[in-house]
């Protein structure tokens, strides 16, 4: 079972660092990186995979803990291919704990769902009233030339809970070719961003993101308040992968600029 554990804390000088880390195959991480135009001391971690994707019957888990006024971003090096699985399925779970005035972003690149792939994806966020989390979750269907087969199933669950495990929001869906693909293959991917913060309504951010989605003719997207005053939801459908990545990136930049006050540099991958 592949396992990645990251714990972020803050040095007396205010710099965020990895207090604890553990990465078992197929996960691999390098040391924390620090970029211009990030919040002071923000640690950036790139998750890499040594295996080239997610395979049949794999069970992968990631556990992120951010506390002590830390600033962190966790992102993937590239999209994650979910390979074909003629018999079984794969499981991927992510737990994110953000407390004590901390800010963390979990911005994963899209899951690429190959023909006959079957994945159960679960993300659990635990957050207190002083902290903020931004989570991006997305998938894109992949079609092989001359092959009529498509992905089989994506069971996705994202839960937002208080630090005491009280449920605030639960986004659960089961996607298959029948309920997602129409005859024209109008949409082949979907992106979702969750801006999780319980202290503020963020009305200006809501209106700004709503306007962006209205004018973006390459996607069909919308923005809304999450239940129980825990933040915002951005959801959009796309016709191709480049648009999916660009829209996630543009939305992330707008969210970061609003929350932190500085436009971040685009991540090189």
């Amino acid at each position: 079972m592949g396992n990645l554990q990251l714990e972020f804390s803050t040095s007396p000088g205010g710099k965020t660092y990895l207090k604890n880390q553990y990465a078992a195959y197929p996960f691999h991480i390098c040391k924390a990186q620090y970029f211009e135009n990030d919040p002071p001391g923000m640690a950036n971690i790139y998750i890499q995979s040594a295996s080239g994707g997610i395979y049949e019957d794999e069970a992968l888990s990631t556990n992120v803990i951010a506390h002590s006024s830390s600033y962190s971003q966790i992102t993937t090096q590239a999209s994650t291919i979910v390979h074909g699985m003629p018999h079984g399925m794969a499981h991927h779970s992510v737990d994110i704990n953000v407390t004590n005035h901390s800010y963390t972003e979990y911005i994963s690149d899209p899951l690429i769902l190959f023909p006959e792939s079957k994945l159960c994806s679960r993300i659990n966020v635990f957050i207190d009233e002083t902290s903020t989390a931004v989570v991006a979750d997305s998938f894109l269907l992949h079609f092989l030339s001359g092959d009529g087969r498509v992905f089989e199933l994506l069971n996705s669950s994202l839960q937002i809970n208080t630090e005491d495990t009280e449920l605030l929001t639960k986004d659960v869906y089961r996607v298959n070719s029948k309920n997602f693909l129409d005859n024209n293959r109008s949409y082949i991917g979907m992106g979702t961003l969750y801006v999780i913060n319980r202290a503020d309504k963020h009305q200006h951010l809501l209106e700004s993101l709503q306007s962006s989605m209205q004018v973006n003719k390459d996607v069909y997207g919308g923005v809304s308040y999450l239940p129980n005053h825990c933040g915002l939801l951005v959801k959009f459908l796309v016709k191709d992968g480049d648009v999916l990545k660009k829209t996630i990136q543009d939305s992330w930049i707008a969210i970061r600029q609003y929350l932190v006050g500085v436009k971040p540099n685009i991540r090189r991958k």
Partner: protein
Amino acid sequence: MMNDDRVFTLLQHGDSIFPSGSVSFSWGLEMLKNDNLVTSSVGVEDFIESQLHDKWGTFERVVLAHCYEHAKDLQAVIPADNLVECMTLPSELREGSKRLGSALLSTYVKLDNPVAKQYQAFIHDNKAHGHLVVSQGLLWHSIGLPKNPVLTLSAYNFCTSALSAALRLGLISHIDFQMTLTRLGKSISKILTWPVPEIEEIHGFTPVSDIASMRHEKSETRLFIN
């Protein structure tokens, strides 16, 4: 088989003239029309079919059945109401569901229904939300309707409400309305044969209409609440 009294009750409480408040809801259809994603009776039928298969059947039907079965213990229904709140992500759909549920409860309070009075008190005390399917399960149990007719009535009400919105949006004719409803009835019959899972298993996947509802929040030309 239902006896004649129960058939009469079902007809009375399922009648479109019964004050349920759903007349001002389009369930995302208004925005889908404005965005040119639903432009014909075929599109309307596809929209409602997808709502039945990927939301009503997998989410609302399960909550409704759960609340019906626990209707004698209102405290046991509150967690289901909270779960619907947590899992209805677009705010217009969430607020609309509560508004419809509260409207239904208010009508039954005026009809002197004791269950409606008790549950409305929970809402006033901020102990419950009163989502539509929760209210339907409680109230229709309280008037003596059997479970399967309750499930059918809920699906029927959703279909006629959405079709009425489509009619007023100029997407379908009165004849389209009836022909579509007949076909949807067959889908509902099939969905009613699905096993009812545990309430923790509920899920839904209707991204196009969810997004339409989210876009509707910013729409300047609105006939409907959602």
